[in-house]
């Protein structure tokens, strides 16, 4: 609970109705898309940059933690107020301020929903490339804070490659523009540093993004494989041939079963794994690339190759992929999702480790992920109402991440470190590495009031440091 005087000050800034502090209402803001929750002391619904700045000043004055929050779809606990304080909700800032079809840019407020931006930009023949599976709900502000990815980031790159500039509010309430739409700006790349900083360095109040021309032709192919190993080898073979598709996604048999039961998209339920491959461009190039890809997949044990013949068929295939995690609810009501990344050639090894870990803990695991990037998404399926199982789930998740790191990978490809993985940061970074990151934190937020308890390991939250299953030493000193 915040002191009444503070609540009154906040109400003077945003209006009476826009500060939520009743215990019941606050519970709505307890979680994001991850497992662990914590109730904020107050939720402030800001509508303008000026309000965000004034709220930040009040928080600084009373030393109250602030956690900027978009749609709350994040998967790493980034929006969870683990140390209490203010959840600074920006979803009322939802205007698309400008679309410049000549410069191919858009200026948006942080609460604009990812998919909405692409829908509006489509009127100009343009789209916004990063497409997280939660794009129907997640916000551009949240995407920028987390440096989110998505299936099409294989070819197009992740959020940081598409954010040109931002208006940000720092912990002291000062407002700044960082970056811009002109190349080779003078000075340090503050925009690049702030994208992906998970709300620990600033609140984002405007974002200028790059838009791309909608490709005239798109081809989408579904292929079945006997197992995950052969599908992984096929992925490496495609890219090894010098082809970088727009998207290259894999689903295992558990996922395919759930997706097919739910969407009836024509996914082959007898397959050990399926690949969804998409190429775009002009018709000449998509035809040529798809023919080459089809040949490579067939040579690598792919079967039942099926190219979407109509846009509706393509949409249905993607609906299955992007809705896969929801469909897994048919198996168990809850999931715990990690997003470690490994060098692509290590996919078969890491997936077999993931399978073993699931079996060890007797937990069903469904894999649906960005295979082209080596970005795993093992979903550990469970029922939250069973209190005993939660600890097992977390241990299994930790072991999976450990396997990722032992194979030369990273903790997160697109979901962020947040609360969930902060304890594991010393697995991949030395004390000196983390010290350098801390210097950046101290410059932007010297009092440590912005999203405290995230990214950096918190000594009070220890990792179990389980022994790995791959028999390999952690390649921490990889230089």
């Amino acid at each position, binding site marked *: 609970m915040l002191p009444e005087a503070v609540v009154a000050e906040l109400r003077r800034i945003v209006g009476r109705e826009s500060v939520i502090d009743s215990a019941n209402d606050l519970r709505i803001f307890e979680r994001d898309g991850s497992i662990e929750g914590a109730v904020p002391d107050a939720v402030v619904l800001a509508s303008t940059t000026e309000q965000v700045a004034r709220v930040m000043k009040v928080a600084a004055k009373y030393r109250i933690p602030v956690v900027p929050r978009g749609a709350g779809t994040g998967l790493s606990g980034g929006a969870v107020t683990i140390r209490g304080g203010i959840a600074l909700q920006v979803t009322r800032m939802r205007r698309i301020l400008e679309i410049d079809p000549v410069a191919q840019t858009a200026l948006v407020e942080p609460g604009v929903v990812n998919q909405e931006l692409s829908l509006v930009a489509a009127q100009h023949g343009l789209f916004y490339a990063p497409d997280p599976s939660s794009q129907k709900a997640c916000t551009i502000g949240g995407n920028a804070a987390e440096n989110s990815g998505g299936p099409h980031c294989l070819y197009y790159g992740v959020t940081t490659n598409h954010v040109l500039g931002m208006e940000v509010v720092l912990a002291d309430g000062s407002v700044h523009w960082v970056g811009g739409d002109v190349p080779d700006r003078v*000075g340090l790349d503050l925009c690049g540093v702030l994208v992906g900083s998970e709300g620990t360095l600033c609140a984002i109040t405007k974002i200028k993004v790059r838009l791309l021309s909608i490709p005239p032709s798109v081809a989408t192919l579904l292929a079945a494989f006997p197992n995950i190993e052969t599908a992984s080898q096929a992925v490496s073979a495609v890219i*090894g041939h010098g082809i970088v598709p727009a998207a290259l996604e894999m689903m295992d048999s558990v996922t395919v079963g759930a997706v097919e039961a739910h969407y009836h998209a024509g996914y082959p339920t007898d397959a050990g794994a399926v690949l969804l491959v998409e190429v775009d461009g002009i018709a000449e190039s998509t035809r040529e690339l798809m023919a080459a890809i089809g040949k490579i997949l067939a040579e690598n044990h792919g079967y039942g190759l099926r190219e979407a013949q109509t846009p509706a068929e393509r949409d249905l295939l993607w609906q299955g992929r992007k809705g896969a995690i929801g469909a897994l609810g048919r198996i168990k009501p809850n999931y715990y999702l990690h997003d470690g990344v490994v060098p692509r050639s290590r996919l078969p090894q890491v997936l077999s480790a993931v399978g073993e870990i699931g079996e060890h803990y007797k937990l069903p695991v469904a894999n649906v992920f960005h295979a082209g990037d080596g970005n795993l998404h093992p979903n550990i399926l469970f029922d939250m109402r069973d209190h005993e199982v939660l600890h097992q789930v977390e241990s299994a998740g930790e072991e999976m991440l450990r396997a990722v790191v032992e194979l030369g990978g990273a903790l997160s490809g697109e979901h962020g470190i947040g609360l969930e993985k902060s304890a594991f940061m010393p697995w991949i970074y030395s004390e000196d590495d983390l010290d350098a990151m801390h210097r950046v934190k101290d410059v932007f937020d010297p009092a440590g009031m912005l999203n405290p308890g995230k990214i950096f390991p918190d000594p009070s939250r220890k990792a179990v440091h389980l022994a790995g299953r791959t028999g390999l030493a952690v390649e921490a000193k990889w*230089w």
Partner: protein
Amino acid sequence: MVVNNPHELRGKAVSSRGPLNKAPSIEKPASAEQLAKTLHDAATQKLAVIPVGGGRARGMGDPASRADVELHTTRLDRVIEHSQADMVVSVEAGITLEALQAELAKAGQFLPLDPFNSPGHTIGGLLASGWTGPLRMRFGSPRDFLIGIRVALPDGRLATGGGRVVKNVSGYDMMKLHYGALGALGVIVAASFKVFPRPMHDVTVTSDGGWEDTSRALATPVAPSALELFSDGRVLARYTGSPDAIKRVVGELGWKTADGAVWEEHSRHAHPTWARIGAPREKLRVLLDGLSDWWASPGAGVAHWAAPADASAVRAVRQKAEASGGSLVMLDAPDDFMRDVGAWGTPPETIAIMRNLKRAFDPDAVLNPGRFVV
């Protein structure tokens, strides 16, 4: 290493810029750890350190206010690991771009980076200076494909950011902090990159049609990977990728085919007094109107200008560039000229934050003092 090169010699002369009592000592450490120790020793004595790679961008920035130690990375020239299947390479900072490309070529891969004033750039120098070339239009700058970095700091620590995977949000993006920072926060000792497959097909066409023809090339259904316009109206367009698609586009343009070797020749471009202009794409033409001796990447919004020895002319162009939201940065010039016009122009609005970052990493301001904006 190219030694008989006028720019190289000039580069050596640059190190004696500023009010020096004696020539700086030259250190060439053989490992990252040694480099970090040398840097730390110098910092402890508050000696000014000028990091040097291939020396190709030595002229960039304001004349250093002090230069006691030249810290060369040239002995750190190993490929640490090239994982062909993962299309990822890790190298030490002192390797030249050419040596790295030769290694990648063995696997049919490449780094899409073709900076001017080539050959001889080191990877560390390219990352610190932020220099790019025509391929930026399609592939972006190293900002977009640098996936890991290791930096020696003045306190002797070696700090790593990122990793060896192509997609990574584990911790802050330390690559962005050091890219283009001209060594002001630390000395880059190693880097990892996402690399690219050699295109299936690579065709260059040329015309003399000036701005109108660049607009035509930019409007083709497949964008060129590189598009360069010269002040004499010559246009070079490079199309890479699917043979069928390129055939169609090149057919529609109807320009003459040029030898691909023209790009290597183009990358040698440099000038004793030259500037880089960055501007919104649609404003580049107006900015360059009336100037001579320039070449531009209209698709990226970047131009390079062999500027006349006339400070007021440079200032006038800079003023126009800044008014359009862009910048004019001097890449090299005689010291007096550089002091007169200034290397960087108007400091950014966020300069105070940048200074705080500088202090956090280099509290005694020993790295390239006076040369960068912080």
